[in-house]
């Protein structure tokens, strides 16, 4: 019992914004709104919101690795793609009976994590840091995209699943919950909405606990000063590797859910543009905090979608400008900057009245 309490106490702490009754009542209010949301709107909007939620996982993974850990990784989309393809290959081969889709989800996320373990071992134990880490992960991502894009011929298949080159895989079964009479199939609608929302809340809270635990503090210490962290006796390579693997698993979860959502996955989901977008959401939101990352991702994504009406090229140019301006003007992120500004204003007001 006391273990649970001490775990819950980690929900707030120095590494995450938001504490006290005010924050958590707001959190409950937002959650309530999210739960009630499908009742107030139509199926299309619900499906679209699921699409937004799916991307939040990869944004959180980037926030973990880049914002908290200080290692800029362009590899998140690679893990996204690996897990997405993994889910496709598994479910097309073994079908969706007996709840296998959930096992496929776990295995696919596991494959992404395993790949990250391998790649991360070479990078972190080779003491690759800073800009080189970004380049190596980027090279891996681009390589994977090229590899998947050339798998068009019938000789490229795993079991009965054709990889289909540039067109990607499609028609994999959606997540299915086995039930007594007939299994519940979660199409990109209300059912999937609640499942993904639940996952999102769990992941968000779990990451809060993780970041405020001693592990999270060490990760932030490594970001601030790797040499000092090492002198204090921490094997920073292990900590970085574990963060990288957790991040890869989250990105993989994003990939699986994306595949589940649209029932397709293509190589371009691992390309340059696809890799740039999560970076923009996280940078604009404020990479060094989980809450601002979630807010930033949802805001920028919906803004991006609204702009796509005028053509996706224009929207992408706008995203590029937004990214450059954020880096130049508000390096910590726009959302985080605004929140910090407001808190400063409020505390100054308090001091004046006191």
């Amino acid at each position: 019992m006391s273990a649970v309490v001490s775990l819950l106490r980690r929900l707030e702490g120095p590494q995450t914004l938001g504490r006290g009754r005010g924050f958590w009542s707001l959190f409950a209010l937002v959650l309530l709104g999210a739960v009630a949301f499908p009742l107030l709107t139509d199926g299309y909007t619900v499906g679209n919101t699921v699409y937004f939620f799916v991307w939040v996982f990869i944004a959180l993974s980037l926030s973990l690795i880049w914002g908290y850990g200080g290692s800029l990784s362009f590899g998140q989309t690679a893990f996204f793609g690996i897990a997405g393809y993994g889910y496709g290959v598994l479910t097309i081969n073994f079908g969706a009976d007996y709840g296998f889709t959930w096992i496929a989800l776990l295995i696919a996320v596991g494959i992404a994590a395993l790949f990250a373990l391998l790649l991360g071992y070479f990078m972190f134990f080779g003491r690759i840091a800073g800009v080189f880490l970004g380049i190596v992960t980027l090279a891996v991502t681009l390589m994977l995209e090229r590899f998947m894009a050339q798998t068009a011929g019938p000789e490229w298949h795993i079991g009965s699943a054709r990889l289909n080159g540039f067109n990607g895989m499609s028609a994999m079964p959606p997540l299915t919950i086995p039930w007594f009479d007939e299994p519940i199939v979660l199409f990109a609608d209300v059912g999937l909405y609640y499942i993904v929302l639940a996952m999102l809340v769990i992941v968000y809270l779990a990451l809060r606990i993780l970041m405020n635990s001693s592990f999270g503090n060490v990760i932030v210490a490594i970001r601030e000063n790797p040499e000092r962290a090492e002198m204090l006796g921490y094997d920073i390579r292990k900590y970085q590797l574990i963060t990288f693997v957790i991040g890869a698993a989250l990105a993989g979860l994003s990939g699986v859910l994306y595949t589940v959502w649209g029932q397709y996955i293509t190589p371009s989901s691992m390309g340059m543009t696809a890799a740039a977008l999560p970076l923009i959401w996280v940078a604009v939101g404020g990479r060094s905090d989980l809450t601002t990352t979630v807010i930033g991702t949802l805001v920028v994504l919906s803004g991006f979608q609204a702009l796509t009406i005028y053509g996706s090229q224009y929207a992408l140019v706008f995203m590029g400008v937004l990214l450059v301006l954020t880096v130049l003007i508000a390096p910590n992120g726009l959302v985080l900057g605004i929140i910090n500004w407001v808190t400063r204003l409020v505390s100054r007001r308090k001091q004046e009245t006191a």
Partner: protein
Amino acid sequence: MDIATLAFSAFYQFGDAFAFLVLSACGLAVIFGMMGVINLAHGEFIMCGAYVTAASVHAGLPLPLGILAGTAVSALVGVLVELLVIRHLYERPLDTIVATWGLSLIATQGTLILVGSTMAGVGTPFGSFQVGAYSYSIYRIVLFMAALAVLGGLYALFNWTRFGVLARATIQVPHMAAALGVDTRLIYSLTFACGAGLAGLAGGLYAPTMTLVPTMGATFIMEAFVTVVIGGADVFLGTAPAGGVLAVVKSGMTSWQGQLFGQIGLLVAVIIVVRVLPKGISGFVLRERT
């Protein structure tokens, strides 16, 4: 097929791979080696060079002048980018990566909007020649020569000119150089322009050999990064030998298993090299020397 033609074929493929690696990487290597800045918009500078070259050739200029125009325009764009963006981020290397990535996104999509999804290409000049049963493109030989000339030119620039000496001084101890009256900001601007110009040159040289699309930068960028990562921070001790080693890997794997395996070979090589030599070849050589 006798030994001589076989050897020539192997050498030709090696030269082709070497030229591609060195030409696409040296602009990046100059900027990274001298300024510690990774320019993710490197591929877009290459694209810029290729587009300007093609446009000038369509306008009636001969190809060499077109390539020069491509180089010059890229260098000018480089100055502009340095002034507007890079200059403000020298203290934050990770943020430069992010910002230049934003620039690359703007450039790629902007070109798509302005010019369209493809641009009419330029024919490959010089034709081909015959050795044994195979015919080879003369232009590929020209590219190999150009790669050697660029390396030679850079060596001369950084060792024999006043700019080169000032640039190297600025790189070694920026504050000391500034105290001695060197305008370090100007040096950084010029170095960045030099790197951007080299990227434009690579684009111009390769413009006749490939299809011009807004995303063509991505074809270069992986090879360029791999070469710079393996080479490390020094252009001559790093990029050139890395280009040589990787060219052997790439041409060997390509002729054995095909283009894709050439690229996979590069990737595996880079992952192994970063594990063994984290600072690249030049870091290894320099450590041995001191």
